[in-house]
């Protein structure tokens, strides 16, 4: 699951001309560390929902990679 999330995050970073990451840290902040805008977060949400059938934004904002893993586990 964590590898799939990394793959999705790298897809979005690539679209924004950002370098791909080799690994994710649970404390990584999606906006500050990964450079995601609100539209990037929206794209991340729909891509994750498409694969895992879970809406990570359903009950409020998600800030870190660890919070995504928690919702998907």
């Amino acid at each position, binding site marked *: 699951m964590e590898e799939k999330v990394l793959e999705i995050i790298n897809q979005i970073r690539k679209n924004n001309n950002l370098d791909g990451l080799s690994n994710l840290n649970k404390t990584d902040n999606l906006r500050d560390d990964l450079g995601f805008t609100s*539209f990037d977060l*929206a*794209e991340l*949400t*729909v*891509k994750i*929902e*498409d694969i895992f059938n879970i*809406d990570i934004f359903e009950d409020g904002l998600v800030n870190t990679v660890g919070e995504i893993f928690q919702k998907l586990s």
Partner: protein
Amino acid sequence: MNILITGVSRGVGIEICTVLLEQGNNIYGIARTHTDEFKNLEYNYKGKIHFKSFDLSDGDNVNEEVFKDFIGKNPIHGFVNNAATAYDDIISNLNLDRLKNMYNVNVFTPMMLTKYVLRNMLLYKVKGSIVHISSISVHTGYKGLAMYASSKGALEAFSKNTAREWGQLGIRSNIVVPGFMETAMSSTLSEEQKDRIYKRTSLKTVTSIRSVAETVAFLLSDKAESITGQNIHVDNGTI
């Protein structure tokens, strides 16, 4: 193009489906009732038209029922928010339950549908087009239509802001503002009342349902690629 349309049981909804099918589009239609008029279109356009029975007063199950069960993994290129319910009365008689029910159908569920339409367009990277059907009552005012007009005014503001928010992804949102048409919704009006309404228009007649449907189809198409955030009046020039 795959087009999601609400309120496809009769009137304007059926006419919009007809125009879009004639142009070769695929229709995903939603309504409470599966009418003979819609079944007739299904017969004539087999495989190009799909129906889902869904009550728009239920905003909680939009994702599950409409998007996961009905649309599935298909990209949506256009969304037409056409369904509406009318609640006519003078304001001093306003009933809160009836008002809330109307807002569920006319505003809240359409907003939830828009949420998931945008998510679908985002997932499939579609530069889609959204069209809401409003009402001339928002712009002129008619006795007894204050509550109904307020719900359509909310949609106009929502559309304008959808256009601004999602324009950078190439997604457009527009409003079609029809004048008074001969539909079930206006069937309670007397001939005298209708004549008074038509006299307030430049063309002095009833608004053509076909003209409304053709305008919706135009706004959904690439011909309207530079039009967003607009209210397009199809109202015989209502004064």
